[in-house]
């Protein structure tokens, strides 16, 4: 019986092998056949590039009609179809092309983003940002080099974006994305319930000490309110924010490395250091004092929600824009409550506006319509008709302009295209932008930060983690398992807990990672002249 089964198994395995080989061959031949137009096409595009360089005045060839595939993150607005139809009407005339606006939704967007880029899909334009790993994708060759294409296909856009921004988005010396030119700040700041602060005569939080005093005051006077909202991701809401402020780091360096903004080449190990221990003890004291809950790591409510609902009284950090939107939500629910904000920059004496990498659009490597895509993107940014329509919808249907302010018609449930419904962060054009009156508050903060602005020198760095990716993955787990509970104040003996964490981290290969990262970072500083 066993013998028979073995035979069946043999037969089966050989069949699988044959099938796999067949499939592999057919796949091979397919992949060889199918992209065969691709290489030839890409050579033709390269050809036209070369030609374009020689006689760039003539612009691009638009004789053949194409459909551009445009990919943005997030959810499609309800009235996207109407906007798309109007854009296509114009676009056919301007470039003999149409565009399909595709949205990834926020469900598994990161996975989808990767699939789109790595499986040779038909994508002509796709959003990029540092939080979508632009630097890594660009470094690994997922995007098309745009240096030669831009002056030919999108000369106006090429002019429109300042030269230093083009420089800033370069990865290994090449341009892979078209940056947004709108200047904003996404740096942190303390957020707290101003009405409660006034009521109990507490100090205004401008640094950690005053912030602590505020938390203590709330704990003492408002037994039903949790002083500080932290949430599941203690790494971001607690440690990142704390380090940005207290240790003025140059950027959110991974692997427990630290360098301060004022001395970026002095990169040191933060994990396991005296400073690290001090900071962890501070978080622990917050937890022990009951400033935040024992169960933050499993919290299911969002921090912003807890503020607007009155269950929490402060956040260690948020950016000006989001603070403003939380404030407005709260005002709508509880007109007599109030929020206030203190940007870290005002205490630290410097603030970094967003890096040009923060919002951009790239052309994937596989695109066969790169020229037309860039020409279209130029229209989106620089042509007022296109820009207004794709940012705000149809005037008098979706919005009106009153005293220079944007005014939505109807509300979120009746309006099919709210302000910036297409998530058009990347193609914002400061010259055409219109804002809601509530934006004045954000602008006031931005104006203050403008006075102390310094460039972001961290975001332009593209780490190459291939040499240590196994260690990196292992470390990720160690961090969650041993460091997060420490940060959340759940380990009684902090010193001992830190020791355990360092032990496990070193076992996972922390030193190897840190060494390699340091080297890359110093090299980047030297090459980029930030030294």
């Amino acid at each position, binding site marked *: 019986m066993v013998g028979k*089964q073995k035979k*069946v*198994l043999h*037969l*089966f395995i050989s*069949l*699988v092998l044959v099938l796999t080989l067949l499939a592999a061959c057919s796949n091979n031949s*397919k992949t060889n056949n199918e992209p065969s137009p691709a290489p030839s096409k890409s050579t033709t595009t390269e050809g036209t590039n070369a030609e374009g360089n020689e006689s760039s005045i003539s612009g691009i060839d638009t004789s053949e009609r194409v459909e551009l595939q445009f990919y943005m993150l*997030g*959810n*499609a607005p*309800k009235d*996207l179809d109407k906007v798309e139809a109007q854009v296509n009407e114009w676009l056919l005339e301007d470039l003999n092309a149409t565009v399909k606006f*595709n*949205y990834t*939704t*926020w*469900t*598994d*967007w990161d*996975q*989808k983003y990767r*699939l789109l880029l*790595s*499986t*040779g*899909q038909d994508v002509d334009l796709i959003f990029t*940002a540092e*939080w979508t790993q632009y630097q890594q994708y660009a470094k690994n060759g997922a995007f098309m080099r745009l240096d030669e294409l831009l002056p030919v296909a999108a000369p106006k856009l090429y002019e429109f974006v300042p030269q230093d921004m083009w420089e800033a988005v370069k990865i290994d010396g090449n341009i892979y994305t078209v940056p947004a030119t709108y200047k*904003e700040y*996404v*740096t*942190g700041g303390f957020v707290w319930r101003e009405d409660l602060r006034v009521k109990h005569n507490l100090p205004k939080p401008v640094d950690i000490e005053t912030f602590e005093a505020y938390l203590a005051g709330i704990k003492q006077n408002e037994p039903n309110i949790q002083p500080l909202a932290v949430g*599941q*991701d203690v790494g*971001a809401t607690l440690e*990142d924010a704390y380090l940005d402020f207290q240790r003025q780091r140059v950027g959110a360096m991974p692997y427990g490395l630290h360098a301060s903004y004022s001395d970026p080449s002095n990169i040191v190990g933060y994990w396991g250091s005296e400073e690290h221990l001090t900071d962890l003890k501070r978080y622990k004291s917050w937890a022990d004092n009951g400033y935040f809950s024992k169960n933050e790591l499993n919290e299911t*409510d*969002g921090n*912003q*929600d*807890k503020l607007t*609902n*009155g*269950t929490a009284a402060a956040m260690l*950090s*948020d*950016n000006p*824009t*989001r603070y403003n*939107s939380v404030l407005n*939500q709260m005002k709508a*629910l509880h007109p007599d409550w109030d929020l206030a904000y203190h940007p870290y920059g005002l205490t630290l004496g410097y603030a970094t506006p967003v890096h040009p990498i923060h919002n951009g659009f790239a052309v994937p490597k596989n695109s066969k319509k790169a020229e037309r895509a860039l020409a279209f993107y130029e229209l989106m940014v620089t042509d007022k008709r296109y820009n207004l329509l794709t940012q705000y919808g149809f005037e008098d249907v979706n919005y009106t302009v009153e005293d220079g302010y944007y005014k939505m018609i109807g509300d*979120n*449930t009746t309006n099919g295209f*709210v302000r*910036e*419904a297409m*998530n058009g*962060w990347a193609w914002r054009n400061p010259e055409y932008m219109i804002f809601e009156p509530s934006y004045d508050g954000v602008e006031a903060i931005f104006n203050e930060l403008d006075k102390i602005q310094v460039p972001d020198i961290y975001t332009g760095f593209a780490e190459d983690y291939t040499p240590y990716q196994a260690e990196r993955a292992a470390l990720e787990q160690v961090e969650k398992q041993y460091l997060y509970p420490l940060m959340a104040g759940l380990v009684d003996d902090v010193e001992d807990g830190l020791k355990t964490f360092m032990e496990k981290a070193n076992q996972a290969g922390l030193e190897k990672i840190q060494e390699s990262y340091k080297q890359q970072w110093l090299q980047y500083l030297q090459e980029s002249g930030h030294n």
Partner: protein
Amino acid sequence: MKIKEDGATKWFRFIAYVVVLTGSVLCLLPFLLIISASLTSNEEIVREGYNLIPSSFTLDAYKIVFMFPEDLLRAYGVTTFVTIVGTAIGLLLMTMAGYVLQRKDFKYRNFFSFFIYFTTLFGGGLVPYYMLITNYLKFGNTMNALIWPSLMTPFLIILMRSFIHSAVPDEVVESAKIDGANDFVIYYRVVLPLAVPGLATVGLFLALHYWNDWFHSALFINDTAKYQLQFYLYNIINTSNFLNSIGAGAGVVLSGPVPSESMKMAMAVVVTGPILLLYPFIQRYFVKGLTIGAVKG
């Protein structure tokens, strides 16, 4: 049929009632909690947690779920269509396969069973599958991408095989053969009617699979009009989770409705509705003796 119940039977029934009732309460309580929460204002949930009886009654959560009724109805439509078509095709293919694989005179039945089973053990992962669906089968952004991937599962085929095996005695097939019926006719005329409980079970599971599917919408569908119900609602939750999880540094601020705790609960109620209709319908076939009647008839 009235048979006098003996003592043992009484005891058995008593135990059965106790167990089933306890189980039902345990299953029902959390559900009541969900229904209650879906009728409570979000603020109150965040402040006071969940209660079995809503302390303040509001339909706000359902208003958000039904904010764009035509979108929701369309999503219902897509799911219903995909469920019906997928279940019909899947059942046809799986009953045929199950029937063939349990035939004793079909020499390679074990080999082919293994061929099918093997796919539960090994898979190529998401990337090649994504390429298969979009690049080779060209199902991207079509209903096919929602129907095709769940059409058959090895588990349901093997289950079908077993149901048919136990419901259809070999002698019945043999005698039909002697009568000159070919294999398909036997399957159609004799086997299918006998295997009704199995059909109902496998059909129910397949339908549920389609009904609960959101993953394939997430992967393959770009067109809002082709979203499945589960995905349409799940995506609202995910949007709020995303906004909670994205760091301040990303600077993402979205306008639009704020999904909420009570909304999640309302969603659970909305998607569960159909089972309350479907399951009792399926249950009709779970009656003892039905198979025997069919054989005799």
